[in-house]
């Protein structure tokens, strides 16, 4: 079916469209313009916003429009890309060019496309193809899936963007192209010994089974507890703990013990409605402490098991944690599930992350169909969590590179991670693109119904995901640059002539691989060498006597004398202020006398002082304000009025030379 006139936009500026829907959202009449256009233009922008699915036919803001406005400015354009891609016109254009998304569409094909696919007159086609071409050129750099992939039929203006997008992409692209299977699946496949493979399978499944042991132990030892627990199912409580903890991981700072209790209390109350409230807390603590292995001071659980190796039974020990407590940056202690814990709960013990993700997507789709939106929310949150994980992995890698580039295997490790992250973003965005438009369609249909609230929440979460993916993409795009920069910077570190060992590669790593028994022998030496000499405290009898015989000190006398401050040369680079600035400031201060800081600053500006020099001027004056400071001839007192200055705030100061007369 050919495109109709209303489906093909005719408003060149996408920025204006955003401003247009902003006015609608603010309740202003978009037609009464500060947009500087005539009414014909306004109707063009209205139609364009409508074609993008941002506003309804009668000019009401739709969910997609709200979603665009809810995003930070940087991500709005990326969101517009998706809106255009999902619009009839965008879809038809991709179809016409035989590509999957707009990245593959050449902007210069607009006229040809409109002539073929619409029922517009040739002159309209020409006019509107200008709009489409402009849009695509503007949108291409913001495509969430990456840089354009089309081969231009003639030189394109966007050439710069293309050439600098990714230095390393070429090296990894063969993988991406040829292996549609997720990384890791093909790598560990067949084993050369089928006989041992069966044995390995048993071992692996056994080890998996063992990891559920702490949960069964809790339930099994229920009758031995001093509190009546018949009505509580401790296994169910355990799994609920996992469920809640995992769904909160990476959302904000995480879940504290108190938060978790709050979340679980309703379920506990339902298990035993007649029990006193304190009992529920007791049960909760019992289960959580059990999962943290509080009994053994949170060391790893250890389960012995037996493997058959070459016909001999060997007893082995499996150590694992299910939950951990970690300190969040704000000092809260939050709960996290370990990989083992997540797998035990998720029941996907033998799948890798990529597969798990595919499963998540399927779950989300089915939940949407059945209206089980609550769970969909959780699934979306877990997808978000994985994006955050990628981001953290990447930032850890870059942190390491910042310390020492030689430690990062860029070609194998980092590029693989970057490729995985790129793939993750691509997959997520593809899924979310479908979901979001589906949800938004339903949201528009459901307006006002109770289910819509849940749906809107899910949409918000997905919007958050989208923002996060764009951020991750930014990080992925910048990492090569950071790495190259560090490489350049660190190359100029002096080469060592003396044969010093590398503390990480030559000492720490081999030490980690030593058996514990042997490493213990090294402990005394390591402690001694790494620490400064500690003079032993000798007993001096007169001091001891006088101290023992001294009357009991009262509290306020115990205040310690402020010891000497620990001053030491710090290993810092060059000073903040260049010598030229210092001279200029000194010269200025020599010249003036009896002046207010505000007028001193304006004189300084007239002489073309930079921000650093201005700051130095203020600091010099402040330094002289301290009357213990004797190295300067300046005298400074407060002028008793606020400082009138665009860059600095505080009291105005009166400055004069010590010898000179105070005016």
């Amino acid at each position, binding site marked *: 079916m050919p495109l109709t006139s209303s489906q093909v936009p005719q408003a060149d500026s996408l920025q204006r469209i955003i401003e247009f829907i902003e006015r609608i959202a603010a309740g202003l009449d978009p037609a009464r313009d500060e947009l500087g256009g005539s009414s014909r233009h306004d109707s063009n922008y209205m139609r364009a916003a409508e074609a993008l699915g941002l506003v309804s036919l009668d000019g009401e803001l739709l969910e997609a429009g709200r979603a665009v406005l809810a995003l930070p400015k940087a991500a709005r354009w990326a969101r517009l890309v998706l809106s255009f891609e999902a619009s009839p016109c965008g879809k038809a254009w991709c179809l016409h060019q035989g590509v999957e998304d707009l990245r593959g569409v050449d902007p210069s094909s607009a006229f040809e496309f409109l002539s073929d696919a619409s029922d517009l007159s040739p002159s309209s086609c020409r006019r509107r193809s200008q709009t489409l071409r402009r849009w695509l050129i503007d949108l291409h750099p913001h495509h969430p899936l990456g840089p354009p992939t089309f081969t231009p039929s003639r030189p394109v203006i966007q050439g710069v963007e293309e050439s600098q997008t990714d230095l390393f992409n070429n090296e990894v692209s063969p993988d991406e192209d040829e292996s549609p299977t997720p990384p890791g699946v093909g790598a560990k496949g067949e084993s050369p010994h089928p006989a041992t493979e069966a044995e390995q399978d048993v071992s692996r499944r056994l080890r998996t089974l063992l990891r559920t042991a702490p949960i069964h132990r809790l339930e099994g030892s229920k009758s031995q507890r001093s509190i009546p627990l018949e009505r509580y199912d401790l296994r169910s409580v355990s799994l609920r703990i996992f469920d809640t903890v995992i769904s909160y991981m990476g959302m904000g700072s995480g879940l504290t013990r108190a938060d978790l209790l709050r979340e679980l209390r309703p379920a506990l109350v339902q298990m035993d409605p007649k029990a006193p409230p304190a009992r529920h807390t007791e049960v909760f603590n019992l289960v959580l402490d059990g999962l943290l292995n509080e009994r053994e001071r949170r060391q790893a659980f250890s389960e012995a098991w037996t493997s058959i190796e070459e016909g001999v039974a060997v007893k082995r020990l499996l150590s694992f944690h299910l939950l951990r407590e970690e300190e969040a940056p704000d000092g809260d202690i939050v709960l996290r599930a370990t990989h083992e814990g997540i797998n035990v709960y998720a029941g996907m013990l033998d799948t890798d992350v990529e597969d798990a993700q595919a499963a998540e997507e399927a779950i989300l789709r089915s939940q949407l169909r059945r209206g089980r939106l609550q769970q969909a929310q959780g699934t979306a949150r877990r997808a978000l969590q994985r994006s955050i994980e990628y981001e953290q992995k990447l930032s850890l890698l870059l942190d390491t590179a910042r310390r*020492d580039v030689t430690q990062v295997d860029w070609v194998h490790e980092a590029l693989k991670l970057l490729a995985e992250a790129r793939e993750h973003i691509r997959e997520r965005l593809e899924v979310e693109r479908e979901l979001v438009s589906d949800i938004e369609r339903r949201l528009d249909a459901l307006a006002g119904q109770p289910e819509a609230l849940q749906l809107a929440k899910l949409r918000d979460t997905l919007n958050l995901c989208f923002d996060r993916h764009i951020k991750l993409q930014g990080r992925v795009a910048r990492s090569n640059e950071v790495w190259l920069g560090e490489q350049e910077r660190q190359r100029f570190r*002096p080469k060592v002539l003396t044969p010093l060992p590398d503390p990480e590669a030559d000492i720490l790593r081999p*030490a980690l691989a030593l058996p514990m028994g042997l490493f213990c022998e090294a402990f005394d030496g390591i402690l001694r060498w790494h*620490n400064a000499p500690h*003079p032993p405290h000798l007993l001096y009898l007169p001091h001891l006597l006088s101290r023992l015989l001294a009357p009991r000190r009262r509290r306020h006398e115990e205040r310690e004398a402020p010891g000497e401050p620990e001053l*030491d040369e710090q*290993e810092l680079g060059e000073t903040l202020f260049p010598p030229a600035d210092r001279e200029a400031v000194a010269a200025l201060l020599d010249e003036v006398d009896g002046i207010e800081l505000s007028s001193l600053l304006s004189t300084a500006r007239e002489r073309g002082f930079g921000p650093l020099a201005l700051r130095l001027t203020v600091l010099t004056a402040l330094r002289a304000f301290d009357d213990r400071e004797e190295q300067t001839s300046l005298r400074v007192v407060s002028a008793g009025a606020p400082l009138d200055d665009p860059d600095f705030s505080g009291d105005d100061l009166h400055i004069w030379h010590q010898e000179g007369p105070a005016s």
Partner: protein
Amino acid sequence: MMDVDVAELGEAAGKLIAYGLDTRARPSRIPEYAELVSRLRSDGAFRALTEATLTGLGLNLLHIGTRGVVLGCREDSAFALRTSDYRQSMSVEERVCHGLIQLAIAAWAFPTAGSLADSETATLPLRTHQIVTYLHKLCEELQQEEAMDPEAATPELREAWRGVLERAQTRDTSDGRRSPSTLVGMVAYALETLASGGLLRKIGEEEGGTWQTLTAYRIQIRELAATESFELIRRLGRRARQNLSEA
């Protein structure tokens, strides 16, 4: 040599060593210390006597500079930080973790020989949580390479990295302090001990406590800890391989 007043020389050497042991003394603030340091550089007899006395005390002169003298302990020195002074009655696993943490702090601050020799660039600040994450990550890498669980009967033969992974990262006590038996508690303790020896300085409380390395720490690691631990770890590594091939 005849004019040399042995008693005066001995007293001066003693004073210099006392200043060297006082982590807070700096030549820039104590004129007498500054004088002794420059005397150590110019007066051969004084230097010989000081070094002989240090040898007798089980100490090494690691560095003479503007921040004074930096001393390090040899085996059996009375000034060495003893295991029992550091932590009483530690289990094998705790010793392993505490020892690895010392190595990890040094490796985080100075990952390569180059960064150890380069006294121009500032080191990154040391953050408790970052060091825990760093050590944990190294151990996880080793865990991924290792397919098999260790045998149950022989805890001493389990690799050191398992000791780290088996430990809880953090755990708050009833009064809101950190438990000293967790990794976070252990790293914070190690950093505090280093700071009390004048090697680091605390600059903030964020991320479990943040410390800045001082020049003395670089000297301590470069002149003493790195080479000595390297030799020892290599020796132990050889023994471990021997044990393995015998078994």
